[in-house]
């Protein structure tokens, strides 16, 4: 099997997953009790705080049904949904009083700024720590419970602990991360604005990195221990290779599953990031999502979820492409697809 067909197969698989997930979400909303989508569409038309007569409400309802296309047969509604989605129309948010799509673009850029460095840094740190823990018994005794404790901590809880200790009690850092902190640095990158950026960025970044690092490290630890027990590692040892060299070869094998997991972990860290962003008042998707849940802003919720799922799938695809580079068996067409 050639490299091209491997790549095409991966792309096809992710497209199928995206279509299936989006369809599932559409069904969930379409058949939700109380028609939240309809209520949301009606709320867009109505002025807040004004009471309307029954006839006016009926008129709003009729117009909302027409706008959503709910007077059409079900399969045409589905096609209409996809046509709108592909045209970039994700509906109208009552929270932001704005179309959802441009709003999400704004949130997405900010979230990526926080999430992608956190995902990458925690991956490297976690694997590094896990490999060390697998090699040294004394270190392992201390590290292991600590790492498990970190993975068991919900992101929001560590965020709260860090925000309170290092942000409020000992105000080394700022317990909030506002858009001006970021925009100032991006607009005029200088040492001064960078310091201000770091001052606010450190705590949310740290809470994401630490929790996610715990999972990588405990995974890497067992993978590495397994590899160090294999025959080739034993053989290298008997040949007199240094521990460092043997560990280097073992790492080369142990790292493969960790690379595949990176794309999937991105999905977990997105959810963590949503919780974190609401603690640090970060203007990412988190605050919008929590509002959307509590006030049933259906289109915002649907938009965030669809776009973020797409983002996870893109991350998975990127990881698959990276995997081609690091695993010669895939590159030479011996496995995969």
């Amino acid at each position: 099997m050639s490299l091209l067909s491997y790549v095409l197969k991966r792309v096809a698989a992710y497209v199928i997953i995206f279509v299936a997930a989006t369809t599932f979400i559409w069904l969930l909303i379409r058949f939700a009790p109380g028609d939240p989508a309809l209520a949301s569409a009606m709320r867009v038309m109505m002025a807040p705080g004004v009471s309307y007569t029954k006839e006016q409400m009926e008129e709003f309802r009729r117009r909302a049904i027409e706008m959503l296309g709910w007077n059409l047969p079900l399969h045409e509604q589905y096609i209409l949904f996809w046509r709108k989605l592909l045209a970039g129309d994700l509906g109208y948010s009552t929270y932001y009083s704005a179309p959802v799509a441009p709003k999400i673009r704004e949130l997405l850029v900010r979230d990526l700024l926080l999430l992608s460095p956190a995902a990458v840094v925690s991956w490297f740190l976690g694997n590094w720590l896990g490999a060390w823990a697998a090699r040294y018994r004394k270190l392992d005794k201390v590290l292991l419970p600590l790492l498990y404790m970190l993975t068991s901590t919900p992101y929001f809880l560590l965020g709260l602990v860090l925000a309170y200790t290092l942000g409020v009690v000992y105000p080394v850092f700022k317990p909030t991360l506002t858009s001006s902190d970021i925009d100032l640095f991006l607009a005029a990158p200088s040492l001064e604005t960078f310091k201000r950026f770091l001052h606010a960025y450190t705590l949310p970044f740290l809470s994401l990195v630490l929790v996610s690092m715990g999972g990588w490290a405990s995974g890497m630890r067992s993978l590495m221990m397994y590899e160090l027990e294999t025959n080739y590692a034993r053989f290298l040892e008997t040949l007199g290779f240094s521990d460092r060299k043997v560990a280097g070869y073992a790492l080369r094998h142990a790292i493969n599953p960790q690379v595949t997991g990176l794309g999937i972990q991105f999905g977990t860290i997105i959810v963590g990031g949503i919780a974190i962003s609401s603690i640090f008042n970060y203007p990412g998707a988190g605050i919008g999502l929590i509002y959307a849940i509590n006030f049933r802003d259906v289109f915002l919720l649907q938009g965030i979820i669809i776009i973020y799922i797409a983002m996870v799938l893109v991350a998975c695809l990127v990881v698959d492409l990276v995997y081609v580079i690091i695993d010669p068996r895939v590159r030479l067409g011996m496995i995969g697809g």
Partner: protein
Amino acid sequence: MSTRRVFALLRKKVSFWACLAVLLSVLLLSGVGPWLTPYKPMQVLPVRAQPPSPEHPFGVDNLGYDVFSATVYGLRVSLTVGLIAAIVATFIGVTAGVLAGYYGGLIDYVMDGLAMFLLTIPSAFILIMIGAFYAAGGEGGVAMSEFERILLLGVAVGALSWHWTARAVRSQVAALKVSDYVYVSRLSGNSSLKVIIKDILPNIGSYVVLVFVIQLANALGTVVTLEFLGIKASEWSLFARVMQWLQMGALIAGVWWAWLLPGVVVVALITSLYLLVYSLEEVFNPRLVRW
């Protein structure tokens, strides 16, 4: 491995007993807690934002709720949802894994596709949708009763997290299927069902126990995060009020006991579950122990 041998190996493991003690005390706390506290979870007290004291062991939050009783009652809700989720996930995972591993073919293909779907989609998003639109009811919709919400969330969490169990069980069963004793069993005229129940399931039994505990730990983590995001099974779920506190400035006002103490209980619970699995794995799979 005989039960006696397992116990002999476990006796020397301090971490195992420590984790078991933590786990049992948290379970005990949620079990008998309601009889330890005179306050109901929704009872507003005349005092606000009181630090821990003998009368209020976990303090009073800035809405006037006793944090200890909130923790005890909330723990019951979260644990119930987590247990339902773990049972559902383990059941679906093991069933799907055994069927896919034993029969292969189309079942295997479908199972693998579904597993890949669940693996790549952040399941929290789907759970948020289900929680926001189905469990909460809201305008025009009928709000579910507490029992229904607990059941719905538990089943939903479980139904979205069986994938890794199914894959792991599948590979174990596929390996067992081609072993000699299974051939003998089939040659002696046993039906597939009998082979699965009598010959294959007992061999993966200890693994299934471990899977159940991991599923419980994972489910608890998911449930707690969902509660924070506003998807709660009941009004007094463990972290259902954290968002409200934050909006009231609990962080700046220093009401740390309201979120930290329940948090410590939950983290202790989940960590002890993971570490229990780890020490049991060491016993069942001596390959992990080098020293």
